[in-house]
């Protein structure tokens, strides 16, 4: 048991580090990287430039095969690169969704022409993609979407609304799941397209979150015309295509960075006064801190176990499924307790101890527990896929989508 790189891994790490040293600035220790995707054009421009550099050096798509422009590398190389990049100041990852989810779906379900036309510009950073699945009435239940596409000759006309689209405001293309047949069971009437985000009738509006950020959008479709050539997969098989995308989403869950953790809390508890003595002297605070520690360290070493499997060329076990459910609740609890430790000053969001970072984390945690799979959905997934327990009873399997909608509105 050790944390050492293999010889090959060490070589790759040096190569990655050399590239980063030459092209980016080292992060000042202790400063959290910004993971928010800004609405600022300058940021997008710098992100595109950075992506182009990475492609040149062979770090843009480490695990993709060479024939689609990747490096043909291993998942562990991908992780090593990410570890190294985290030490440097780099633009936010505006390509993560496109390269992590959309383009792999396009490669798998699109035509050769699609690949030739779209993969390269996406890799280079010239074109950015987003994913248009969720809708106001269809959150956890993605297949419950209502956005309709009606065929008109060689084109489709789309009407409806998507929501929670990361980066829609700066994206060039979007992967779009729509309902093409409401008179069959809900999973069966879906079809996947991609859409030019500059098409007539596409309107994007930012969603302001509780935490103040606005990296998500609502996207409205009003009589948007899409050529049938932009269809991915067969008509009515959109759900299968969507599953490819969603599987990739689950793999993309990476290293949570920029989160205040145990050491930050410990530093706070040492300096703050609780009932006349340093908070860290209070047994109740120590007890809670120990709990945070076993969760944070447990997740860290769970990642190490996963990387070990990857390093051996094995498929990691299902352990990584616990990451989000544990860290979301912990972020919320740690944020909450840190404010308590600050006393009355805990209410101060802007300045005060920690410059409001704990407070922002507490606000953000409420969303983190929801985005990309709620705590409840994740526990279901663990119970079903890991422990082999039966799925929830499904009442929507043998009914057409139209009937379901009618039943819902009747109540």
């Amino acid at each position, binding site marked *: 048991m050790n944390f050492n790189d293999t010889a090959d891994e060490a070589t790759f790490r040096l190569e990655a580090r050399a590239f980063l040293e030459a092209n980016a600035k080292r992060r000042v220790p202790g400063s959290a990287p910004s993971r928010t995707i800004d609405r600022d054009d300058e940021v997008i421009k710098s992100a595109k430039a950075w992506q182009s550099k990475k492609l040149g050096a062979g770090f843009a798509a480490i695990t993709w095969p060479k024939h689609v422009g990747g490096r043909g590398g291993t998942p562990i190389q991908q992780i090593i690169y990410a570890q190294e990049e985290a030490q440097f100041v780099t633009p936010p990852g505006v390509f993560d969704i496109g390269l992590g989810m959309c383009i792999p779906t396009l490669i798998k379900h699109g035509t050769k022409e699609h690949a030739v036309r779209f993969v390269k510009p996406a890799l280079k950073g010239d074109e950015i993609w987003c994913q248009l699945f969720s809708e106001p009435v269809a959150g956890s*239940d993605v297949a419950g979407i209502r956005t309709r596409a009606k065929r008109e000759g060689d084109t489709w006309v789309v009407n409806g609304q998507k929501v929670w689209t990361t980066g829609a405001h700066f994206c060039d293309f979007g992967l779009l799941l729509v309902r093409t047949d409401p008179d069959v069971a809900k999973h069966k009437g879906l079809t996947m397209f991609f859409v030019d985000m500059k098409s007539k009738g596409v309107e994007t509006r930012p969603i302001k979150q509780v935490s103040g950020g606005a990296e998500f959008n609502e996207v409205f479709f009003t009589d948007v015309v899409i050529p049938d050539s932009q269809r991915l997969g067969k008509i009515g098989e959109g759900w299968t295509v969507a599953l490819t995308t969603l599987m990739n989403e689950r793999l993309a869950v990476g290293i949570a960075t920029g989160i205040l953790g145990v050491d930050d809390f410990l530093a706070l508890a040492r300096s703050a006064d609780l*009932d006349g003595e340093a908070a860290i002297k*209070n047994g109740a605070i120590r007890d809670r801190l120990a709990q945070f520690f076993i969760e944070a360290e447990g997740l860290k070493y769970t990642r190490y176990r996963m990387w070990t499997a990857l390093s051996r060329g094995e498929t990691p076990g299902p352990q990584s499924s616990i990451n989000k459910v544990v860290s979301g609740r912990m972020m919320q609890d740690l944020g909450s307790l840190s404010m308590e430790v600050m*006393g009355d*000053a*805990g209410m101060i969001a802007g*300045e005060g101890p920690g410059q409001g970072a704990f407070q922002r984390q507490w606000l953000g945690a*409420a969303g983190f527990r929801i985005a990309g799979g709620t705590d409840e959905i994740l526990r279901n997934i663990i119970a079903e896929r890991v422990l082999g327990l039966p799925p*929830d009873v499904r009442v929507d399997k043998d009914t057409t989508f139209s009937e379901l909608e009618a039943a819902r509105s009747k109540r």
Partner: protein
Amino acid sequence: MEFDFSADQKLLKEQVQRFLHDKSKLSVARRVLEGDETHAADIWRGLADLGALGVAVPEAYGGMGLGALELCVVAEEVGRACAPVPFQSSVCLATDALVQFGSEAQKTRWLPKLIAGETIGTMAVSEGGKGIAQMATTLAGDRLSGTKVPVIDGEAAGVAIVMAGGAGGATLAMVDLGGRGITRKRIDTLDPTRKQAEITFDGAAAEILGERGAGVRQLRTLHDRAAVLGAFEQIGGAEAALYMARDFALERYAFGRQIGSYQAIKHKLADAYIKIELARSNAYYGAMMLASGGADLPLAAAAARVSATDAYEYASKENIQTHGGIGFTWAADPHLHYRRSRLLSLSLGGATLWRNRLVTALEKRNAAA
């Protein structure tokens, strides 16, 4: 056994509830959250018109001359509405401080204005999270100097009860915030529906409230009393959050059925209900001790506060969770309670502190028995 509010008290409760339900919808809280107002002056006036700001103040000073129980029911409704008004600062702390410790002159000068809602009161103790032992604010003669932050409703307030050191030890001082030598600065907080300020006193005129050197003891008494009232405010808020979640769970469908039919949601909301019922029962005992001046007040107040803090925090955070994505948007209402629950949890000291205080009181009671 008469362990409940009386019919008259319930009538008062309904009256306040009706007023707030009609006038202080969450859109009003949102208006204050997003806007520049320190608080909703219209709601505050309305509460004053109902007499709700002075229910527990003797009629001699313009109050309704009722008791603490009546104030508890008002607090619950203010909490339920998540009303953006300086209720805790002005009514439960400043007004109560005057009633408990004020001289006749102080009462006569301030109480009628506070009750009429003409003047808002607040309490200024904190200095950026430092303990009272490290306090830098001093009262020298009748001059007060130092900086207090955060002061809840400190911008809206016309009078403040300020904790100050100096010769003779920690002392509560009354300061007319309209006087000279006072500067205020708004600060960002988690719950801007009750805006907070930093107040700097530079030789401001002040007079002692109660007794020089008795500040810590007086503050403890006021906090015990306010903890009971705060618990009712928290319980009202928790119930509002629970039923908001319940209503959403009935409306929202996933996989062809109401999300409220899934046990993960059902049991989450049942747990919120359980916490709220425990809090309510503990708070009733706290109210009884508050109203009767019972010796058990410190213990009962701590139990009420710890229990109600737990209930409101849980109900408000799981209300967001039940709402899913929409619950985390600025435009949806759940975050109003999430923020308010935090304010009420922190404003009189956090749960760890109160749990410790609870056990200290329990040890004292058991040693006496």
